[in-house]
């Protein structure tokens, strides 16, 4: 990992690199283009104020908050099980992954540990929600670049993993399945076999997308060398997840700092990085990540231990006084909950660190000097979920 030695020099270097990108040999009167809050490419209510010179972006400023739902405040008046249902709605494409770090933080404060079977299933569902999230990205990015068919294939094949999540948890999008001390239920009968089938389908889908989209010359022309984010800049803007790994930083919380309660060390898998840091690298890393996730699921399915799925916890959950921060590697990047408890039924304060909010903070830097179509590539490949930006 590259160290950020001096933040000021990094900032100066970043500013210089950005200014070099703007090419105004022939300056014309600028135009301000308001992308969003209703724009097809922002999939949600993100607004980008872009100042243009011709088709070149002179400055792009993301405005968020159109979908702010006040989750951090709401958590102060909700009990812990209620919060679990609430935070499902943060990153709505990989909902189960939102629950896990919060539950782990609460477990850490209470000193409870889920039984091994629950840990296994938790990890499997976590990776399944990652697949559900990123497989949609792979198609949706194609959709934004004009390749409509990839989008439909993604919706079709995501259904395999959503069906598995639904049959295990009862909820397609918002499982609300994780509990402090374990899980709500055990797995249904035959779920392991059908999950193997679903993962095989997803692996085939990855191959198909690689053929159809990622290997396409036009796609590569639209993404290679576009929106390059060097490693130092990525780190200084607090990027995480695939966006950071695509800049060549070998960083993955699942491997480096896996919180107790998830069993990633029980599977054999690899963290993929890409040296380029461009839109293509971000897509490619996510594609590999989907494959790795399917591999993790398949391995863990074979080694699920038997036993209960719930530890002994009181019926009315009161979390003892204390503070805890637990972060996991969510589909979009690092997602963490800083939970402060005063020993009540409700937390005193919860700070949600969601990945997308930090990921889009780099948009003004990376979009400057790009063209309007490249802005779409950049926004698409940075991959944010609006609910993850505006909690």
């Amino acid at each position, binding site marked *: 990992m590259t160290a950020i030695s001096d933040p000021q020099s990094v900032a100066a270097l970043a500013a210089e690199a950005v200014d070099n990108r703007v090419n105004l040999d022939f300056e014309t009167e600028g135009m301000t283009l308001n992308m969003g809050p209703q724009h097809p490419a922002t999939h949600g209510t993100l607004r980008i104020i872009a100042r243009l010179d011709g088709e070149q972006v002179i400055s792009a400023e993301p405005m968020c908050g159109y979908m702010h739902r006040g989750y951090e405040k709401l958590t102060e008046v909700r009990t812990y099980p209620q919060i679990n249902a609430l935070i499902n709605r943060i990153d709505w494409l990989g909902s189960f992954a939102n629950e896990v770090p919060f539950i782990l933080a609460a477990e850490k404060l209470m000193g409870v540990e889920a039984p091994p079977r629950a840990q296994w299933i938790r990890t499997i569902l976590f990776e399944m929600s990652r697949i559900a999230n990123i497989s949609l990205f792979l198609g949706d990015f194609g959709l*934004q670049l*004009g390749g409509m*068919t990839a989008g*439909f*294939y993604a919706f079709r094949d995501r259904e395999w993993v959503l069906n598995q999540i639904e049959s295990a948890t009862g909820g397609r999008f918002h499982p609300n399945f994780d509990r402090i001390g374990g899980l709500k239920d055990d797995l249904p009968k035959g779920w392991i076999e059908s999950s193997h089938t679903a993962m095989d389908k997803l692996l085939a889908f990855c191959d198909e997308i690689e053929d159809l989209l990622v290997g*396409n010359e036009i796609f590569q022309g*639209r993404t290679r060398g576009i929106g390059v984010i060097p490693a130092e800049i990525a780190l200084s803007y607090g990027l995480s997840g695939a966006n950071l790994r695509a800049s060549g930083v070998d960083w993955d919380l699942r491997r480096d700092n896996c919180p107790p309660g998830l069993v990633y060390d029980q599977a054999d898998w690899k963290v993929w990085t890409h040296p380029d840091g461009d839109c293509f690298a971000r897509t490619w890393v996510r594609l590999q990540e989907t494959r790795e996730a399917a591999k993790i699921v398949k391995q863990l399915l074979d080694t699920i231990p038997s036993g209960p799925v719930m530890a002994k916890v009181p019926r009315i959950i009161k979390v003892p006084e204390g503070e805890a921060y637990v972060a996991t590697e969510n589909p979009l990047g690092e997602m963490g909950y800083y939970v402060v408890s005063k020993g009540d039924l409700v937390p005193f304060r919860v700070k949600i660190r969601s990945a997308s909010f930090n990921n889009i903070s780099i948009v003004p830097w990376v979009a400057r000097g790009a063209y309007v179509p490249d802005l779409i590539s950049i926004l698409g490949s940075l991959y944010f979920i609006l609910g993850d930006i505006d909690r």
Partner: protein
Amino acid sequence: MTLLLAAFAPPYWLSTLIKVLVVSAVVPTTALILGMVFLFKIMSWMQSRLGPQEAGPRGTLQLLADGVKFLQKEDIAPNGADRWVFKVAPLVVLMSTLLLYVALPASMHLVVADLDVGVFFVLAISSLSVIGVLMAGWASASKYSLMGALRAAGQLIAYELPMVLAVIGVVIQAGTMSLNGIVFAQNTGSIFGWGGIGFPYILTQFVGFFIFIAAVQAELTQPPFDMPVAESEIVSGYQVEYTGFRFLIFFLAEFATAFAFAAIAAVLFLGGWAVPWLSTSSDLYYVLGPIVLFAKVMIVAFIIFWVRFTYPRFREDQLQSLAWKVLIPLALVNIVVTAVLKVVL
């Protein structure tokens, strides 16, 4: 039958009226057919969907239902719009489409106007649509519309040239610019003395065919060249402010133009309305000609739409460099080779 038709010599006003009616009936029909078959059904199958199911048998009337829906919508012009220009723009686009059909031969006599310079007329008329597009983009008083219109203008200028150059090879081979003349030349031609399948020019002009199809794709603003109407970038470009029947006119014009270009490609490269083994002077072509042409059009349209549903979109500058650095030099080489071979052989 020839005698019958020869005896039918209507006065000028009647024949003109018939021609006007035929063209204005054919244009929406072709748009409907292409929209239904390709946009709704084949696209759905390619994308593992079912497509429309409910309206009519197997959803075949869906597009009609949509058309009726469009007609019911309010005709809205934005506040800042240049109202007169805004309202006329779709008609200008449709006009260029209608004029395209004037020169298209469906058999030797089934043609509205058999022009001696049919190829020239068709290529010239097709570029008129960009005026309508520019009018629409400018008059909409929307930034997205303006960007879309300017992209369309740049794109059409860049792709008019390779299209014309691609066709020149055919014209050199046929020795005529009349569309019917090109069909005759292909029907009577022979490959090394063997006239079994006639001589469709795609056999020698495959480079020209490829360039022509690529240029058609760009003229129609279809993916991978759909930047002027890219919905994920500039929200449908110049069409963004249009509602109701004016939007419907854009839609009709787009698909009718696609049909017309597919027909031009079929005439220039695939032998048009004629089939091998049957002399072009046969009376059968009164019936057979339109059917044969339609079949060939569907083949070409399938290629066009197949690419449309498969590829992502180029960036504007990539499109320009493709046109100027690849397609135009390739077309020029094609012309030189064709001309040399025409003289030598």
